[in-house]
């Protein structure tokens, strides 16, 4: 075999077999050959390769009446583990899963002392592994989701809104104390991954996830892969200069920026001024009920919210042109399809792109799910790299 051909046999074929075993409970060599299009010999060699590395194993099967059944193979669940976490103000949710994606442990911890972050996260990882019954040597990837900008070149925070003291060293500290691969990942990017894999992004090549919350953020999943940008700043579109209503009441943050237009604090200013109170989700719900009774103020408020959201969202439409643009955030979730329809109308006035706008579909811990999925995909990738 040539080096070119040998490279296929060593890396690509086992990967193809592995992916089939991920999708099925167990398979015979014949079934694997049929599913992958590999010859039976090549499929068998790859199965042996996976068994030899402890990644797959023969499983017990009931014998049929007419003689011994063909041996079936499955992935070895205990071959490796990943850990993922969602870190927010005051709270850490952490989970461990085996390489087949089955959840093995989950815990929640208070998180109060930023100066203690590295050792607290270190202890949490060990506790999580212990609960899962996994040895740290089997830990293949740790993905920690947090707000902030993480420089992909160093793995460290360039900008940490949650914990300013994390800057520059937290990743290195954890990598050295655990001696395992650890990455921090921007929380909006992880929610985008969750939406790409389990929500509106299934079967879609390019997805943009737009979070309009206390801050604004975009997550870009292009050709199925997360794009972080050269320095991790991709999607930080709160800074974008946009036309502002005249006059407007400034909230904390850059003046004349998208943040001043469509963040929760900015919408709160509008809501309070129009008499709908300080909770933007409640305000939108109230206004929708009132607009059903033809309340003119409610109509005006909803149109203003939709117009502001549309103005920032249309930037993503015209720059990225995704198939689907997923919106999330407190007032958007509260507004549901009724508000989304108004936003679609307002977007169409600005952008002629044929984008599909949708509300986020993954509601159950999207950041944690995105972190787990990212950790699993990265870990599986490294199994067959090099």
């Amino acid at each position, binding site marked *: 075999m040539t080096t070119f051909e040998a490279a296929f046999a060593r890396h690509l074929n086992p990967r193809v077999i592995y992916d089939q075993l991920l999708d099925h409970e167990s398979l015979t060599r014949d079934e694997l050959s049929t599913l992958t299009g590999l010859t039976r010999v090549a499929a068998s060699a790859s199965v042996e390769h996976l068994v030899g590395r402890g990644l797959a194993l023969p499983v017990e099967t009931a014998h049929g009446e007419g003689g011994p059944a063909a041996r079936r193979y499955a992935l070895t669940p205990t071959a490796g583990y990943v850990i993922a976490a969602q870190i927010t103000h005051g709270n850490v949710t952490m989970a461990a899963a085996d390489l087949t994606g089955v959840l093995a442990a989950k815990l929640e911890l208070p998180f109060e002392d930023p100066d203690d972050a590295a050792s607290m996260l270190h202890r949490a990882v060990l506790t999580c592994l212990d609960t899962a019954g996994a040895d740290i040597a089997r830990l293949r990837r740790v993905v920690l989701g947090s707000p902030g900008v993480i420089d992909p070149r160093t793995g460290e925070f360039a900008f940490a809104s949650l914990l300013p003291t994390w800057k520059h060293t937290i990743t290195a500290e954890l990598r050295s104390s655990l001696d395992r691969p650890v990455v921090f990942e921007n929380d909006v990017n992880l929610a985008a991954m969750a939406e790409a894999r389990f929500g509106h992004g299934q079967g879609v090549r390019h997805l943009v996830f737009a979070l309009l919350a206390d801050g604004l953020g975009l997550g870009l999943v292009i050709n199925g892969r997360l794009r972080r940008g050269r320095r991790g700043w991709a999607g930080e579109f709160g800074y974008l200069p946009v036309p502002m209503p005249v006059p407007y009441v400034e909230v904390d943050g850059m003046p004349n920026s998208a943040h001043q237009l469509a963040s929760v604090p900015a919408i709160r200013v509008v809501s309070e001024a129009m008499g709908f109170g300080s909770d933007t989700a409640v305000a939108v719900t109230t206004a929708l009920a009132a607009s059903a009774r033809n309340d003119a103020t409610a109509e005006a408020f909803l149109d203003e919210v939709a117009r502001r959201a549309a103005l920032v969202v249309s930037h993503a439409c015209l720059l990225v042109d995704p198939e689907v643009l997923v919106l999330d955030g407190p007032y958007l979730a509260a507004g549901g399809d009724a508000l989304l329809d108004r936003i679609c109308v307002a977007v169409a006035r600005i952008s002629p*792109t044929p984008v599909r706008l949708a509300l986020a579909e993954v509601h159950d811990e999207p950041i944690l799910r995105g972190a787990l999925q990212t950790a699993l995909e990265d870990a599986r990738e490294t199994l067959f790299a090099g």
Partner: protein
Amino acid sequence: MTAVTFDSSGAALARAVFNALLDHATLTRAAIAELTGLSRVTASGIVDQLIHRGFVTHVGALASNTGGPSARAYALSDDSAYVLGIAVDGYRIAIMTASVTGHIVSRHEEPIDDDEAVSPAVERAVTNEFSKLNAPLDKLKYIVIGASGVIDPTAHELAFAVNSPSWKSNLAAQLRRSLRCPVAFENDVNLAALAESRFGAGANVPNADGSRADDMVLVWLDEGIACGVILGGRLYRGAAGWAGEIAFLPAHVDGWADFERGTQSSRTTTLQRAIGSRGVVALAQGHELDPDVLIRHAAATSSGETHDALEAGFTELARRIALAVAGPAFVFDPDLVVLAGRTVRLGGERLLERVRQELAAIGPAPARIALSETGPDAILTGSMLLALVRARDELFEEQAA
């Protein structure tokens, strides 16, 4: 994930041999095997196939350095196949012919005065060129036409154009019929970005760590404005060909009427109206300046009044360009943003410097910006490049079948 079998890798192997010869001009069979990682038997078989198909010729012998018999040397044939790059706007058509090996054979340009003239102009140029080359027309393998408008990324046809003269909708079909060759449209700014990435600032302005600027956004500031987006070294068009169409974006500019009914703002327009060439002219007139004087930041007289007007106008010009750059810079965070088009050619380094200052005021971590290094033939070069890539893809797919 689909299985990769050895049979279907034949085309990939032939491509690998072709690329090795592209990079090294002249090689022996042994050297080809070594460079591609193929066995000598496999490599030799592929060389024979490529000779048979006319892509490779025997060009002499290389002296052996071990004292043994000299080895036969091979090279790509320049005359095996050709591609055409075309750039067309309302005023002129430019046509570039290149061999499939990437050598530019000719460049032809003529003014066009009406829509009817476009298709005959291309046919005439092709006929002349191929008779000069003494090559049959079936050696023409691919044509890419660069034009303004949104191009459907799968059909390669015009999907949307602000001004759509009839040639745009008919040209590809006519050329396909008369020249019997695949014809694809591509957005002109996308093609300029492709050329910039290969031969311009994208190739010449590396990242701080020395790596290539593989994520690059070209911001085109001319009569129209748009971005060409290169991600991972490849053209990114978006789901429907709309990626980078920033002309439609709302922009905040003093003295403009509402862009949309019902808005509370009285200073909103689109980026196209703010910084397209007409917007720049309007800006200059607003300051009682000649547009070129404004862009060059160079007045003949230096009266205090002119100086103040020039400063104010130039700052506003830079601010509007920074608005156009901010979107792609914050959404993609590319390695490099390249400014191109007539406005930037005139403004040069002085304008670039002022844009940098304005961009720094918009937000943290401003993108690295450079001026285009491709010159006025960027669109034409880009269309030729894309035609080369597509032609090679088709040639080697055909071989696998």
